[in-house]
Each structure stands twice: as structure tokens, then as C-alpha cells.
């Protein structure tokens, strides 16, 4: 990067907030999707919205592409640096600015973690509802960018349902307030557009979130089934009974094996386990939970275990939430997908995925949000075997096609990012994609704000496509993957 531009950044935010040493930069070369990597020219560490404005103004003037980054837990390469560009890390904007219990609102900077909000309000009996599996470490700014979900969004919705307002830096450096702490701000729902725009339209520097009263009662059960179709019919019956569970999760044998190896949740041996959680007023939960239990038994559950206390409930969720990371115990490498199918198409699509895995000789684990049809196929492969990385990527793509063919989506909560943009034309017509591009052009006319994400473009020069390959720094023993 031109020395003159680097100096401008140093003048604007202070030299200590500008990282340029290769060893420092390499930390930012990818998010939690490590097979896409690109080392940024600089990493900038603003401490305030004014810093972010100053950085964006320089980028805008000098034509430098920029990528905002939270805590780097994204699973679609949304924070993948752009060659020749800078990464703007929001990690140091990490203050909780206001906790307003009477009005059930919390104001935070984007670097605050998802779980920190709940920690702040738990003493008052409240919580922040969206709960992505990475909630201990993921940032609220990243959640806003990706419209993050979690296991409980079947009943409680996604990030977009829990953000009331944001302060954001536009690509020209202007600071704007979007949304309102009050209801019914007139005009188009720009906040709803911004949430989930994957850092391509603006950089959020503050968010006002809604908190909810903790439910009076939570009941969780785990049911073991001999087949996915039995488990699937139990889910359909629960929904048909007019019950909206807080969460309905499924894990198949591969995912159960991995979870057992990693965190020992002591799940019963089964082809499929179903986790159903109900929450709400005690009387409602007690009444409906009995119905759910009966449905599981009737649908052929070989075992139904009801969590008797918070410890047992925690164990069930630990097994579920650790499933991704646990895949490392049973496979050297894995690839996570995030396709969605209509709930009624689950058995059909899962059957196709199973057949695909058998045909291609790859194990595919499935851990997913069954209530809303959001699949997380975990494709196991070994990069040391010639061609298997490419095979895994192709299989992952094939699964997305199955999801779209079933009337679903290529991504339920991880975002399109750099990872799935080439699949966007499978879901949307060229006209639809062009109109989405015009949205982007309206807010980012110079195409500097997280370019190369969400919408399909030719591969960027210097961006290495394909599955993860060991980085030279790793090979030299200077860093390791975690």
C-alpha cells in the first residue's frame, strides 16, 4: 500500500491502531471459514465511531477497499480480507453503553459479545434471545451483519427481530442513526435491509437491542430414533398440534459420534436424536410438554430422556452446540453447509444427502435446526488424500442445489459471504440480483465496502479459491489452526 495512505491512517487513528507487520496481519487472513484466506494490507483498530468515520473517509478518498470485522467467527467468509484492502476490526469498540431494564433495551458497541448482553441483564431476569452456537465469542456487530440465528429462532426469530436501532458509518464517512428506540418510525425499513447485509452497505458502530423476560419455565427432552423419518414425523406432528417449541434440533449418528468423542454428553445410541425444548409460562409448558413426549413415543422413539434439572439440560445443549467443533475428533477436515428446506421436505432432502455421501464416498454428518428446516451438513474429508478437498467442495455445492430444488435457501443463518455467492443465481434471477446490486451501488457507489461478498462476481485477483490449504506460517510452525 502507498506509504502516503498508510500515514494518513496513522494520523487519523494513531500509529498503535494500525497493524502492518505480516505476523500481525496473518491473524486476520480469514474468519471461521479457514479455507478462504487473503492477507490484508493493513488492519485498523478504531476505538470510536469517529475513528471508523476517519478510516472510511480515507478509504473513500484513496479508493482503498475495506472489510469490517467483528470477532471473526463467521462461517461464510464474510470478513475475508480483500487483496489490496484494509480490515477494520471493531473489537475495541466493546463497551456496553446503556442497560435500560424498564424499557427492555440495551445499547452496545459492535465489539460486545452476544453472551455479554445476556450477562448484563440476567441479574434482572432478562436475556438477549438470538443464540448462535458461537455466542460466547461472536460480536453483536457480526450478528447484525449476518442476521444471526441460533437454536431458538424458531420461536423467537433472528437478530433482525431484536435490533431496534443502529448507528452506522456510511461508505462516504457520514454517521447516521437508523431505526429507532421507539416504535413506528415512518418510512421504508432501512434497518431491516441493513441487518443481514453482511457488512456490504455500512459499518455499524452502535446497536440498540431488545431484551426479553426470561421464561418462567423451560423443559427439554431428548428422544432417540432408529430412523430419520421417524424423527421427522415426530417434528411434523408437534407442529401440526399447534405447538411452537423454543427449539427443535436433530443430530444424526455421525454428529452424535463426534459430540460423544468431544464433550461426552452421554447421548443414547441412536440413528437420530431429536432435541425439543419448550419454554414459557409453567402451566403452558407442562401441558404442551406432555403432548410432545407422547408424540415422540408414538412416532417410535426408542428412548425419551427428559432433562430433570439445569445440569441435564446444559449437558444436552453442550452436546448439540459442540457438534461442529467436535467433527474435528472424527475427521481431519470438514466443510459446514447452511442450506434450508421447507420442514416438510426434510426427510426427502436428508435421504438425497445420505445417498450423495455414499455415492461419493464421503461421510456426511447432519446437525440441524429441524423446526425451521435449516440443515448443517458436515462433510468429512481428508485434505491429505489427493482430490478430496475439491470433492468435498463439490458435494457441499450439490447439497445447496438440493435445498434450492426443494424450495429452500442456500443459507439460513451463516450468510452468503464469499463462500456461497456463486450459488446466488440458483436462487435468484439475474434481474433480482441486478436490483440487489443497485441497492449496493446506491450506498456504496465506489464498491469499496466489503467487495466480492454476497453477490456473484468473478473471482478477485489474488483470492485463492477452493478448500483450505496449509498456510506457509502454519507450515513453518509459527501459528496453528484452532
Amino acid at each position, binding site marked *: 500500500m502507498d506509504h502516503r495512505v498508510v500515514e494518513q491512517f496513522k494520523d487519523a487513528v494513531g500509529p498503535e491502531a494500525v497493524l502492518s507487520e505480516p505476523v500481525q496481519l496473518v491473524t486476520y487472513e480469514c474468519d471461521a471459514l479457514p479455507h478462504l484466506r487473503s492477507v490484508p494490507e493493513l488492519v485498523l483498530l478504531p476505538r470510536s465511531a469517529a475513528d471508523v468515520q476517519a478510516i472510511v473517509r480515507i478509504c473513500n478518498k484513496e479508493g482503498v477497499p475495506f472489510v469490517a470485522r467483528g470477532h471473526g467467527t463467521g462461517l461464510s467468509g464474510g470478513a475475508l480480507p480483500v487483496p489490496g484492502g484494509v480490515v477494520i476490526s471493531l473489537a475495541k469498540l466493546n463497551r456496553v453503553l446503556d442497560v435500560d431494564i424498564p424499557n427492555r433495551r440495551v445499547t452496545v458497541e459492535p465489539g460486545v459479545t452476544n453472551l455479554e448482553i445476556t450477562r448484563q441483564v440476567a441479574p434482572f431476569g432478562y436475556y438477549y434471545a438470538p443464540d448462535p452456537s458461537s455466542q460466547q465469542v461472536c460480536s453483536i456487530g457480526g450478528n447484525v451483519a449476518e442476521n444471526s440465528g441460533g437454536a431458538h429462532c424458531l420461536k423467537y426469530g433472528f437478530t433482525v427481530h431484536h435490533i431496534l436501532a443502529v448507528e452506522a458509518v456510511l461508505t462516504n464517512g457520514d454517521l447516521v442513526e437508523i431505526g429507532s428506540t421507539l416504535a413506528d418510525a415512518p418510512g421504508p425499513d432501512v434497518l431491516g435491509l441493513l441487518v443481514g447485509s453482511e457488512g456490504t452497505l455500512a459499518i455499524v458502530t452502535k446497536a440498540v437491542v431488545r431484551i426479553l423476560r426470561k421464561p418462567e419455565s423451560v423443559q427439554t427432552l431428548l428422544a432417540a430414533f432408529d430412523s430419520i423419518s421417524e424423527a421427522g414425523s415426530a417434528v411434523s406432528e408437534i407442529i401440526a398440534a399447534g405447538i411452537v417449541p423454543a427449539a427443535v434440533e436433530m443430530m444424526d449418528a455421525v454428529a452424535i459420534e463426534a459430540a460423544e468423542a468431544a464433550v461426552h454428553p452421554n447421548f443414547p445410541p441412536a440413528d437420530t436424536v431429536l432435541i425439543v425444548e419448550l419454554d414459557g409460562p409453567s402451566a403452558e409448558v407442562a401441558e404442551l410438554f406432555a403432548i410432545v413426549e407422547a408424540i415422540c413415543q408414538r412416532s417410535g422413539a426408542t428412548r425419551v430422556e427428559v432433562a430433570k434439572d439445569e445440569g441435564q439440560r446444559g449437558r444436552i445443549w453442550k452436546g448439540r452446540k459442540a457438534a461442529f467443533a467436535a467433527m474435528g475428533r472424527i475427521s481431519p477436515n470438514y466443510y459446514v453447509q447452511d442450506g434450508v428446506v421447507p420442514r*416438510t421436505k426434510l426427510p426427502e432432502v436428508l435421504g438425497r444427502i445420505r445417498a450423495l455421501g455414499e455415492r461419493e464416498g464421503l461421510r456426511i454428518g447432519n446437525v440441524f435446526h429441524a423446526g425451521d428446516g435449516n440443515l448443517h451438513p458436515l462433510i468429512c474429508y481428508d485434505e491429505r488424500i489427493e482430490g478430496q478437498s475439491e470433492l468435498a467442495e463439490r458435494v457441499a455445492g450439490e447439497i445447496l442445489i438440493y435445498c434450492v430444488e426443494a424450495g429452500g435457501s442456500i443459507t439460513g443463518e451463516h450468510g452468503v459471504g464469499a463462500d456461497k455467492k456463486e450459488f446466488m443465481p440458483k436462487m435468484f434471477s439475474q434481474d433480482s*440480483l441486478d436490483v440487489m446490486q443497485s441497492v449496493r451501488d446506491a450506498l456504496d457507489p465506489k464498491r469499496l465496502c466489503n467487495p466480492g461478498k454476497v453477490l456473484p462476481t468473478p473471482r478477485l485477483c489474488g483470492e485463492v479459491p477452493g478448500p483450505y490449504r496449509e498456510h506457509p506460517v502454519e507450515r513453518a510452525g509459527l501459528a496453528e489452526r484452532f
Partner: protein
Amino acid sequence: MSVSQTLRQATGEDAIDGVIPRHAALPESPEELAQILADASRDRQLIVLRGGGSKLGWGRIPSRVDLVIGTEKLNRLLAHRHGDMTVTAQAGLPLAELNRRLAEHRQYLPIESAFEPATIGGIVATNDSGPTRHRFGTPRDLLIGVTLAMTDGRLVKAGGTVVKNVAGYDLGKLVSGSHGTLAAIVDATFKLLPIPLASTTLVATYADGNALAHDVAVISGSQVELSAFDIRVSNEGRGILLMRMASSPAATAAQAAEARRLLTSTPAAVTGDEERSLWEEQIRAPWADGGTVVRLSWLPSKLPAVAALISRIDQSACQVSTFTGRAIGSGLLRLEGADSAIAAAVGVLRQSDDVGHVVVLRATPGLKSQVDVWGSASGALDVARMLKHKFDPADVLNAGRGPI
């Protein structure tokens, strides 16, 4: 079919704030709608989009209207995927008709309108909602996919038909509340809810506004889960709280018992047809008879101050004939009096720190010439204008009337 054949001369029935459009069109297909839009936009004709026409008076007075495009012939229910609890309906389908049909599978779209003819397209374009927003949010929270006709004639989609989906920009959210200023809504897909097995509404009456505000805070902070939580001021000036619990029968009874325990006032319980009429009346009350209707919002903790503010307005030259709303922050005022007195009252509301987003929804042209119906500027509106420039470069959609 050429577009000119589908246009007819508009009549007095098509008038908007007394302005009669030159032409009216009732397209019979999405393609025809898109073509009409493209032709009119190219010719820089000023266009107003109309669903059931029930909220057509919302907005500024138009300087002129060249073409009103009605969606009444785009009124099909395209798919009710009851196993997946989603529905796709064309913009012109009335909400009431949709909910009648969803009820065949014991499901519903939890949005209420004060107006029988209100259509899906109009509901999304205005993001108008009723008491169940307390539990399920406004239309934007239930909308999962949309088809739009753009001013250049393209038909585009965003979102999809599954409840969980983050692929691409959420243009459905963007057009929510856009009042027909960005694109025409062709169809919309929503997630649905099961119709509750049982329902009870507790009605508590208060002579003292502070006691009412106290109970609102207590119930809001409790673990009682209401599907609707409304307030209204009776004709005698007494405050009323309406609390609906809807769940399984035993749970509904237990919730009602818990709410009774918490309230300082002894409520009456209403169920069945009486409960239904109670809520219909609550939803329709602000729109009954004549008068100006003003929407306003507040932070939950400001409720006592809001009550004081409204009573001050009632003692001014204009009279508050109805005040209803959602207890935790959104309401409708019906005001009666001379235009100048109402304009002054709107000014008082807008200057107050206790309420915000004061929008004049129904007003005479005389009043509209004295106040801006939409009120203050905001960063979001500035961004929305940047988007409008791309979506409607000729600036013909709801020109001069809408919020942008």
C-alpha cells in the same frame, strides 16, 4: 395486450385527497402490472399504487396524480403450505379473506387491520399492525419473501418461502413501510402461527393514570406472556387495560390467574364472541366516525407522561375523542376540532420529549396544508432516498405524498 387498452379514465371514486387521477388501471397479471409501471414511469406519469384503498388518504396531498394502479385483480392465494406454516398471496388479496382461508387449517397470519378491505400489499406497504404486534411484531417481522415490480418493468424476488433464510438483501423489509414509493408489491410470503386453542382477555379499569402505568410496568416485567396488551381511554376519561392470553386452555386459565394476582385493579374476564367483539371495537375505535387520526410512539417508561400530555391536549382547543394503543409504546389518537387547533396539538406532540414519530394518518386537506403529515427527518429516510433514486429514478411513485 397493449397497456393503453387496460387504462380507463379515472373517476371521482379514485380521488386522493380530492385530486382525481387522470387514469386508473387494474392489471390482471404481475407482468401486466410491471409493464404498466414501466410505461408510465418512462412517460414520467405520477403513479399511486392502491390495494383496498382503505389507507389511501395516508400521505401528503398530491400535486397531481396521473395514474392509479389498483391490485384488486391480483388477488389469488398462491400457496398455503400448511405443513410448513407459510403462505404466499398476491398483493390484492384482502387480509381478512386470507385469514378466513388459513383458518381451514387452524392457522393465521397474526396481523389485524381496522379496515375490512385492507389487502396484503397495503398491509406490507404501510407496515400497519394491530394488537397482536405485542407478541408477533409488525408485518415486516412475519414477511419472509416478496415479489416486486420495479419501475423499469422488471419483476424481481427477494427472500423466499422458507422461514429461515439470509440469502441476499432483504428487499421485503425495505418495502415494508415504504408506502408505495420504491416498487409495487406483487406478492408476499409470510410465516404463520397456529390459532391458539383458548383465549381470555382481562379488562382492568383505572381512575388513576399512575395506577394504570404501575400495572403496565408490573405485567411487562412479569413472566405472564400476553398475546396482546392494549390500553384505551374510555369516554369517561378512565384508563382501561386489555390483556389477552392465548394458549392451551389450562395455561390460559393459569396465566389469567397470575395476572389477576399481580394487578392492583380487579379485572373482568372476557371470552368467546364477547372477546372477539371487544378487540374488533378496540381496533376500529380510532377510525370510527370522523376526526383526525394521529399515530405516536413512546418508551414504555414514559406512559404516565404520555397520559398527562394527552390530557393536556384534551384540555386545549381540540378534543381527544379516542386514545387507543399498545401499552408498551404505540398508539392512535383521534382528535376533533378546528384544523388550526389540531395543527397546534400536533405541534405540541412533536415538541414533546415523551413521544416520538408523530404521524398524521387521517386528516382533511385543510389540516394537511398546515402540518407535514410525516414529521421529522431521519438518517434512515436519507438512506431511503438514496435507494429511491435507484429504484424510482423518475421519482413517480407516490410522488410528493409518501415519506420519501
